[in-house]
């Protein structure tokens, strides 16, 4: 098991390393050469000045050399300076990450608390009204563009009902907890609706699958009461794929968070990624993207581990 985790960490590290090179290259292709920007800001700069600056910043070196310099610095802890925020990258990154994790935390909590039971109930009463309802919600949820969902919620709650604010940006640092929660309400709702759609659907189909299986019938034959049967056997097994989705959904959640945070101006990782890419802040974008990749892969790893732990039939030696 430890060996397996070790291998996975190794794989993650390799992917991150490769991605860092790829993204480094891609970022370099983004519009806006730093020197050009400086020239635009200072028209008196001559071409000799520009050339000198290029040399100073090492921008005239070939890409792999620049990359290696960057990598060396990064591994040493120096992740660069953010042009957009005029601070070291890490100083901007951590708070944003915290904010996003808070947002995702609430989302996951509500999705699980609402979505899983919905799925279970739907599975227990197939083809009933509630089953169709859950199915519909699931389908609708995954068919809705998340940005549009956000907009719809804004229209409904902010414009029409005036309950929640359309922007989640709190500028007043003395804002109370209540105000903060209020501001976060719509983003959480947006993300949650999407997640509930996934969870309830998967939970339902897993439960149906499990309930059909033979050992449930055997357990029933032994005389256990219905509830015990459901809870003990089915739940444990149905949770397995849900755990997997949870881990895989992490990446999805991150992407979804990007859209939601941007629309609601919530200062999280997603908005950071978006702003830094659109603002041509190379350093920030690079680090933020790598972080997002890392988080996603960690999510996958956790999901696989959870899967393996819950399902004793899977052995790590035999994993293909």
């Amino acid at each position, binding site marked *: 098991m430890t060996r397996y985790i070790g291998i996975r960490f190794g794989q993650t590290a390799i992917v991150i390393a490769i991605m860092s090179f790829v993204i480094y290259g891609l970022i370099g292709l983004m519009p806006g050469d730093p020197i050009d920007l400086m020239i635009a800001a200072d028209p008196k700069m001559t071409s000799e000045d520009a050339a000198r600056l290029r040399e100073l910043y090492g921008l005239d070196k070939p890409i792999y050399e620049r990359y290696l310099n960057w990598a060396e610095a990064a591994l040493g802890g120096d992740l660069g300076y953010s042009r957009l925020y005029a601070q070291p990258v890490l100083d901007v990154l951590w708070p944003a990450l915290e904010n996003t994790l808070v947002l995702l935390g609430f989302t996951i909590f509500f999705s699980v608390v609402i979505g899983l039971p919905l799925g279970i109930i739907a599975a227990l009463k197939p083809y009933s009204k509630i089953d169709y309802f859950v199915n519909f919600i699931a389908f609708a949820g995954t068919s809705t563009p998340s940005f*549009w969902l956000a907009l719809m919620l804004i229209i409904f709650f902010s414009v029409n009902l005036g309950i929640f604010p359309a922007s989640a940006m709190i500028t007043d640092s003395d804002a109370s907890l209540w105000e903060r929660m209020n501001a976060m309400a719509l983003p959480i709702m947006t993300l949650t609706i999407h997640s509930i759609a996934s969870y309830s659907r998967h939970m339902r189909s897993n439960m149906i699958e499990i309930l059909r299986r033979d050992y449930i019938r055997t357990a029933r034959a032994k005389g256990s009461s219905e509830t015990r049967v459901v809870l003990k056997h089915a739940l444990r097994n149905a949770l397995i794929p849900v755990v997997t989705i949870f881990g895989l959904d992490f990446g999805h959640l991150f992407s979804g968070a990007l859209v939601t945070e941007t629309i609601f101006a919530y200062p999280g990782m997603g908005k950071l990624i978006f702003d830094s890419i659109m603002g041509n802040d190379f350093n920030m974008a690079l680090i933020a993207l790598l972080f997002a990749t890392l988080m996603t892969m960690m999510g996958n790893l956790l999901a696989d581990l959870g899967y393996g732990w819950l399902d004793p039939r899977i052995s790590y030696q035999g994993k293909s």
Partner: protein
Amino acid sequence: MAKQPRDSESMLSLAWKRFRRHNVALFCALILVTFAVMSFSAPLFEIFLGTDANLVNLYERFAEPSLKHPLGTDELGRDVMVRLLYGGQVSLMVGMTAAFAAAVFGTLIGLIAGYYGGRFDSFLMRTTDAVIALPLLPLLIVLAALDLRKVGLSAELMESDNISLYRIIAIVALFGWTTVARLVRGRTLTVRERDFVMAARSQGASAPRIMFVHILPNVVSPIIVATTLSIGHVILLESVLSFFGLGIQPPMASWGNLLTNAQELIWQAPALVIYPGLTIFFTVMSFNFLGDGLQDALDPQTMERAD
């Protein structure tokens, strides 16, 4: 002994019979066909209504729905309905093309990985897993924000009308192949063990022949299903990118970029935000239901399998 189907019964007609039982899927197929027909006859609508999709008329901003403008006008006075239809052309085209391209690529990968097995399989599947593990949207945004002139593509090409169309198709297809690849690989592994493949090998059939003549026709059903389901996903991705101004560029209309200014519009004309989103919603949902129906029709035993 197995039941003997009638002489004229082919596998296709059996599948069609199963599909017909799916009322919802049929209905959705109908919706999609209607959308498609309407979208591609947008020019006719233009003529009929006497208006133009790109005609800016600042005197008629935010007009109420009328005979001349069945859905009203937008913030620049352009007719909403016609723009919606043109947007449909784009979104549907992007959706189907990108999904198809991704499917082709994914099928190739899956066939090769499944047929050759061993190192190839290992490598290809690990690559696939790695791509799946990447955060999709952030990377799409980076790719969409690239300035391709830096790679050497001519400025002329970059300014051309259709470039945003090609770009978005390419970008979305770049990540969309993974589902199909996995699916095809799994099926290939199964089909590869069947006797008729062994028979072909024993006759000296070459690997490409076995892959394309023997294995591929037997894995086509799940590919069709997966591709249909992915069209909806692609349309969603395109709409997000266009919404952010990174996808289809105005004046070309796409359902996504009709919503680009939505956040300001919410206060003035919420209807303008509702229409495009609703069309996206119904289209994607229809593709999803259609895909489900196709799955039951083409591949009924999938329901029973544990994976």
